[in-house]
């Protein structure tokens, strides 16, 4: 299983699920990070936040939270 932090810059991925508190999960869902959604990792510097493109806009997600987003690499 890979998390968002394992995806290299420029690569697409599909979200499988998000574990973590209910609040965090719901917040991410409302921002479009839903299971099955295809996202593109724009910048993953290895440390610090990961920037992704989802639903046509850019989101920056803290490293800890990004680790909890489980994805499948395309």
């Amino acid at each position: 299983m890979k998390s968002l932090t394992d995806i290299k810059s420029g690569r697409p991925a599909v979200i499988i699920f998000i574990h973590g508190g209910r609040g965090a999960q719901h917040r991410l869902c409302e921002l479009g990070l839903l299971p099955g959604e295809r996202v593109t990792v724009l910048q993953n510097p290895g440390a610090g936040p990961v920037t992704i493109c989802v639903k046509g806009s850019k989101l920056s997600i803290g490293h800890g939270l990004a680790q909890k987003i489980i994805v499948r690499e395309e």
Partner: protein
Amino acid sequence: MAAKGKLTVGLAGNPNSGKSTIFNNLTGAHQHVGNYPGVTVEKKEGKIVYKDYEITFVDLPGTYSLSAHSEDEIVARDFIIKEKPDIVVHIVDASNLERNLYLYTQLQELEVPVILAMNMSDVVEKRGSKINYAGISRLLGKLVIPTVGNKNKGMDELLNAVIDLHEGKIRIEKIGVDYGEEVKSEFDKVTAGIKKMPDVPKGYPLGWLGIKLLENDSWVTGFIAQLHGGPAILLEAEKSRTHLKKHFSDDPEVIIADRRYGFISGVCTEAQTRSPEERHDLSDKIDKVVLNRFLGLPIFALVMYAIFKFTFTFSEPVVGWFETFFEKAGELAAKVIPEGLTQSFVVDGLIGGVGGVLGFFPLVLFMFFAIAFFEDSGYMARAAFVMDRIMHKFGLHGKSFLPMMISTNGCAVPGIMASRTLDNKKDRLITMMVTPFMICGAKLPIFALFIGAFFAQEQGANMMFLMYALSVAIAFGSAWILKKSVFKGETSHFVMELPPYRIPTIQGLLLKMWERGWLYLKKAGTIILLISIIIWAGFTFPQRETKEGEGKEVAAAVQMEQSFAGRIGKFVEPAVRPLGMDWRGGVALMAGVTAKEVVVSTMGTIYSLGEVDPEEAEPLKEALQKDPSWSPLKAFAFLMFCLIYLPCFVAMAVFYRESGPSLEWTLFLIFWTTVMAWVASFIVYQGGRLLGFGG
């Protein structure tokens, strides 16, 4: 002509959708800024008259959703439910339809007439995509008006739509999200239960309450629980939730969000032709550099430096004019008013005190302008991103950047309040503890005054930058210590949208600058004025008789030393002497706890009272330069103390309230800042002397 009536129109929209620009276009300068009752979220209103209607526009907080995740979201939906605006205009960033329409799906559940303003429609065209506005209008059953906020296009069409809809010339339909069979049947059950409740206050859309219960919305759950028959409904809702969870093997709120996005996606595919990979072309290129692992931080430092360079270089002459103005005003007052207490009151108390603070007004305005520029261009979101990694190392949070930024050149009070966006209590307390270390708009004049007086002009911006860097270092260092000692534990999460870069509009920047500047002026005209009078009285009374043979200068000096304020200063002098200060520094610092600008106004009063001939009054800066008891090293040690020591009364009161309220944490803050300030100032002064930088 009699007015046809009054209309209230709420403006809703995502952050960065161009909502404020449209609000500014619609209302011009007729704005009123206040707070929503009971909360600290800013409420902006503007009134205009259009086609015989008096229309009040209310700018709702920018949100992505209307759940109960943040105070902004609760405020926005509360306004719609409780104040029942006649119409809500939803400002949509047409170049980012999917994300923006998510808010729409929830707005329409609140059963309020909605008009969609498709903003930035020019950006869409430029990219070569097309939006079929009539198609969206048909699919959503609502009015859709294309607008270009930053070019002031489409405003008349928008206003006409508001009036036509109000007069019933246009009909809108209700087309809601299809949540699917399973969710719908559970929703019907819960809503039917709510319908039977006898005491649901009027105006609450029952269907909305139903869907929110299925989403397990914390606020709505609490609200229903208080009502008669509420607990039974909650039990019912919980049953429905369990059922849905089993059926979908996912939380109902995830399914509901999924259905909403599904609905939007349907609308978008039908009404939008996309050119492939259209978005983020230029923004992407800029971000590749700005967010680069190695370049990100140097660029951030450069931007901050640019803000200071801009502020100090361009405000310099204007600050000079202001100084001259107050100097001349003092001289004139001294000529017109006969010598005595009244003259001293006007010249030394009012002009010397408040004038000293107002002299820096242009500087503050320039600073606000520069910051607004980087905010509106989209850089500040990147700054939080770049800073997140470092913030984490020091036990802070990417979002802590915002309170600290608000406090820098702004005010620690909204800064402390902005800490509420942090979910974790420990993170919030740490952020609140270190936010007051930043150089706020009130501390700025102190630094400007002393740096101007004791350091060469070319070095001004550099010295100032050094002070800002020190403030950040102290804040981070404190956070690190606090995280290692008092607040052990994990830091919480960080999510943030990075909006596309945009060129800010001049009107928007000027309005922002003026709004914040006005607060500064208001403070100078009220609280600072009041305290200046008290300080003047403190130095003037008790009055003493001039002894025979005593020179005027000696008399003035002795009078000050033996006054109430002077005696207090003498009392604390032993504590501040090792820091290179005398009793005057002590008094100014103590007075500064009421509001930090007062450090400057107190100095102004002290030096103005010391002037024997008020008609020859010189600016405070020159008076300080000429005073042999000051030196650059002493000035630096003094600034060090000002940088760190306890926040002003208002900030402490807000800290007390926001920390729990907790008296222990507030006392801890006072103790912590005072000790740190003394130690740092001591090291600077005594260390500097040892290194031979003079006394």
